[in-house]
């Protein structure tokens, strides 16, 4: 029989040690497309992600970037939409379409054994889409209805409108889609956008999973030629023109909860304060044990969840506190959020809390490199910003060494409540 364990003290904590950030193997196709490979895992599957400079930043009319990406799979020179989806589903594969502000992605997930049948479909939809009118009517109608449903949600309204408050509604990071915008985009716009953005000069490929030998040769055959070249366009520059008012309210009658946003402009990943802000943000609202969660959820029960994040974009970035709180406690919740922001500016964080956050963030990073798909997700952000893996090594270094004074300095520089914007979407003006 084993001796009884001492339950009053935590078992000895082992240092998490060094994180081995996986280095992708990088190849280049004849036309210059870079291919990043994360070859690992236990399942005989692969994801092939094609990343294009085709986010909403590049569109002239709202909805164009998203619609183009969604329509890639809705009919090509050689296949109808139905034939494409029948074939893809038959081989158990699926596409994922994502349009973000800077980039757009199309990802094929496939069993390796069916790749000979599924990879040609990826090539077909990326290079030869024809944007049929009829299919576009269906997609546009569907997106319009989805948007109308989302606009009933306080959280959705707060998210979209807060960006507009920060960046202005003429800026690609600030603009939000209105149902009326959808009808203003036609299939010719999509053809033009595809031609301008979806070409080999705008493309990178990330492979993750168990990568079979000869994979690069197959990619070369499908994507390495000059048959789909184009010129990487110089991105248009926009200047943010945020609101000149700090406090905003949007009425949502009958809502049982208010959605809250408090935040301000920040910067891209390569800014010298980025890593420090990641740590400061974690303390405030970046994990379950954060101050916002402790105060507004675990101490007061105002909310099911509240948090904050630092969001880096290619050309800028922002910081935001976000959550939904009981409509009747909106005022109290705002005041507690501001109290926590102020506390970061006026008091230095204690050693125990700081060491907790260091461990949490290190563990988070360890999970973020767990498995090929996670590695690809993590690395994608670096490719977008033209950074390499040393960025994460520096981030971890900051996590381990930043001190309380430096954190307080960052709070004073970026998180003074009076400098930040506030938006409430709810049933009652505060």
């Amino acid at each position, binding site marked *: 029989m*084993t001796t*009884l*364990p001492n*339950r*009053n003290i*935590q*078992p*000895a*904590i*082992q240092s*998490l040690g060094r994180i081995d950030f996986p280095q992708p193997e990088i190849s280049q196709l004849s036309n210059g497309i870079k291919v990043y490979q994360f070859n690992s*895992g*236990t*399942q*005989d*599957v692969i994801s092939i992600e094609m990343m294009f400079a085709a986010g909403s930043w590049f569109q002239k009319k709202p909805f164009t970037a998203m619609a183009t990406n969604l329509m890639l799979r809705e009919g090509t020179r050689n296949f109808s939409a*139905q034939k494409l*989806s*029948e074939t*893809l*589903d*038959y*081989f*158990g594969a699926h596409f994922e379409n994502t349009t973000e502000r800077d980039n757009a992605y199309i990802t094929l*997930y496939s*069993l390796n054994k*069916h790749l000979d049948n599924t990879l040609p479909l990826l090539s077909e939809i990326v290079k030869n889409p024809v944007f049929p009118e009829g299919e576009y009517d*269906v997609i546009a*109608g569907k997106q319009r*209805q989805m948007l*109308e*449903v989302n*606009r*009933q*949600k*306080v959280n959705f309204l707060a998210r979209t409108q807060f960006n507009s408050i920060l960046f202005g509604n003429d800026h690609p990071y600030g603009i939000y889609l209105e149902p009326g915008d959808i009808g203003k985009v036609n299939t010719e716009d999509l053809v033009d956008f595809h031609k301008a953005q979806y070409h080999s000069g705008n493309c990178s490929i990330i492979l993750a999973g168990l990568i079979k030998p000869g994979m690069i040769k197959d990619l070369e055959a499908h994507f390495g030629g000059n048959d789909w070249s184009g010129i990487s366009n110089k991105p248009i520059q926009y200047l943010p023109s945020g609101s000149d008012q700090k406090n905003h309210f949007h009425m949502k009658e009958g809502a*049982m*909860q208010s959605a809250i946003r408090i935040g301000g402009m920040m910067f891209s990943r390569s800014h010298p304060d980025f890593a420090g802000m990641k740590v400061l943000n974690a303390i405030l609202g970046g994990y379950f*044990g954060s101050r916002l969660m402790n105060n507004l*959820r*675990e*101490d*007061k*029960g*105002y*909310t*099911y969840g509240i948090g904050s994040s630092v969001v880096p974009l290619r050309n800028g970035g922002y910081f935001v506190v976000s959550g*939904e709180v*009981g409509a009747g406690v909106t005022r109290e919740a705002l005041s507690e959020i501001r109290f926590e922001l102020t506390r970061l500016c006026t008091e230095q964080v204690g050693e125990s809390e700081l*060491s*907790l956050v260091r*461990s*949490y963030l290190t*563990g*988070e990073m*360890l*999970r973020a490199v*767990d*498995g*090929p798909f996670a590695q690809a997700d993590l690395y994608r952000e670096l490719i977008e910003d033209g950074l390499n893996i040393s960025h994460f090594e520096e981030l971890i270094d900051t996590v381990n060494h930043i001190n309380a004074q430096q954190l307080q300095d960052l709070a004073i520089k970026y998180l003074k409540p009076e400098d930040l914007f506030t938006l409430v979407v709810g049933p009652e003006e505060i």
Partner: protein
Amino acid sequence: MTEFDRFTLDNGLRVIVHSDTSTPIVAMNIIYNVGSRDEHPDRTGFAHLFEHLMFGGSVNIPRYDEPLERVGGENNAFTNNDFTNYYLTVPGHNLETAFWLESDRMLNLAFSAKSFDVQRNVVVEEFRQNYLNQPYGDAWLLLRPLAYKVHPYQWAPIGIDPSHIENASMEEVRDFYERFYNPCNAIMVIAGNVKTDEIRALSEKWFGVIDKGGLNNRNLPVEPEQTEARSLTVHREVPYDAIYKAWHMCSRADSGFFATDLISDILSAGQSGRLNQQLVKNLRLFSDISAFISGDIEAGLFVITGKLMKGVSMPEAEAALQLEIDKIRGNIIAENELQKVKNRVEAMMAFSEMRVLDKAMNLAYYELLGDANQVNDLVQRYASVTTNEILVEANKIFKPENCSTLYYFAKD
């Protein structure tokens, strides 16, 4: 093939160990065999409220989350109609902290009166956030009591009404703990770069002394066969009309389960599913429509739900949907179409086990069903379904009198 070792402690705790040396992360997943089906009809939402309280402090440890975060770990939990599932991941060399934390809250809880008050509020906010303050968010809360008249699946894990949570007492919560949170009522899975001997020793050390407690021997009322179609009509502040149809289906252990699951895939898996092709793309009656099974262990529901395109009338949409149902009841499916959904299942299985946590959850779930090794038979079980079985099961399910329909209209 997911290989694993399995042993049972003297107090009845079942332990499963899966070794995966490809990752520095270890996952621990614990299922307690208690869900919202075990609740009293006047105290619904209790199993889920209880899941929140499990983080409010145990007999020797005042806070659950902080020590785990201190070793780089992360955790969460969920409650469904059938069971409550707690899971965490932790860097492997700090695995013992997970044993310390999980065994202490199996040993005894010690949440404070304050934690109790606060978590009741948090759960009420969760109720609002996910159900009441969302467009169409109450549809499931309406559909369940329409379909079930006696079985406790008639309420959702979040409960019938927030007042049940608001009225819960500390004493009731303690009773709940004593009844259900016992080693013999739990299954623990550890997956990662671990050895069975080491896990056995840790399990004995931390969990071995906990009293066995009582088994959850359920005696739930059996839902009588539905003999008449039912419907409910509501009007809500939503932008579009929607329809929800639910038919009673077999239990998870029934031999017809796999065919039933494939029927839902034939109707709506991927873009090529029948409902999407015909009702969204060709006829343009719905903006989206999907078919799925509720995933319950006991006899559950086969559900089809869709939102109508603006301007389409409910009778027109419902009639077109009925035609698709008649088609799958009346005609044998082509081999090729069946093969398509089988291939999809095979791929989904591979993609659903990318991380050790996924594998740990799956093993625990199938052990709860009766045998963790079912994980390794699944693809084969689906592959052996015949076109005839599809026809037979479709005819069992889609009888008009077996259907409950919720008409969810937009207020004008």
